[in-house]
């Protein structure tokens, strides 16, 4: 296989972590909302933890993006 073609396929494969990040973000916000509707008075205190979890989860998806960029541009 040509190197150029292999690079493009590799970059495409590196986008798969987006699926996991999507599921994870859905779980975080979904569960936060479920909890917030049950006990709205406790929601504000947990917002910080939710945003932190959001950032940590998002990072997994972004790592995939970084790998795709490295495959495409660094080699």
């Amino acid at each position, binding site marked *: 296989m040509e190197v150029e073609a292999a690079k493009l396929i590799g970059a495409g494969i590196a986008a798969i972590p987006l699926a996991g990040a999507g599921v994870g973000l859905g779980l975080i916000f979904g569960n936060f909302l479920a909890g917030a509707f049950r006990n709205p008075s406790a929601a504000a205190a947990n917002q*910080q933890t939710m945003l*932190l979890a959001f950032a940590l989860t998002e990072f997994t998806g*972004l790592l995939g*993006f970084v790998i795709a960029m490295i495959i495409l541009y660094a080699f």
Partner: protein
Amino acid sequence: MIDAAFRSFQAAGPMEQFEILPIVELTFGGLDISFTNSALWMTIGVGLIVAFFYAATRRRTLIPGRTQSIAEILHEFVANLVRDTIGHDGKKFFPYVFTLFIFILVANYVGLLPSIPGAPHELHTFTTTSHIIVTFALAMVTITIVLIYGFAKNGLKFLKLFAPSGLPIWLMPILVPIEIISFLSRPISLGVRLFANMLAGHIILKLFAGFVIALLGAGGFASVLAIAPFLGSVAIFLLEFLVAALQAYVFAILTCIYLSDAAHAAEH
């Protein structure tokens, strides 16, 4: 006109906006220390911060005016963050966390400004935080402070961070390496998170903007469809507006958590 715009888009890919270009060429002892567009936009960001806080604190009143209110809200916000995460020891880290938060916030927002049409390439708006060297340097400063403060405050007990008390002895060989690796990956994840968020956001913005030009350039029915990527780019811009603030907040809060680890390592 659209044709010319189309051609210029073809010339500039989505990665072109991250190019570092020298504005004033300087060399010092064989080193290239040119004043670049990255340096220019960092200077603009810092200049805006200094100007704002100078204006806000020039005439301090008991009942704050509008500018002073904004400065007080920002101050209060970061002070609460530091107090809640680090606790009593956190007060001495407030200046650092505040500086970090404001710098990243302003650098992110300054990068979202549209460029002046027709300006030379090196004067286009530039997001300094979209370069890993900037974000990684900020992350390394944080980790260096954590290490120095951790060892200075706890001595060798700082190493208890890697071996939480109450851990069964047979778990140690498994858990301690994991804890060490997770500690070592902190500067990487801290730096890469901000950098990748900014990079990805700006690439997507540029791609959507490119679709608008490409569809307009195609003419006929296709140019009517250009409204779809245009609305898309507006939506992405709104998202980026949120992300810019959120990433500054996340960077500050993670810094606080790491500092709190260093402050309370011996108590584990």
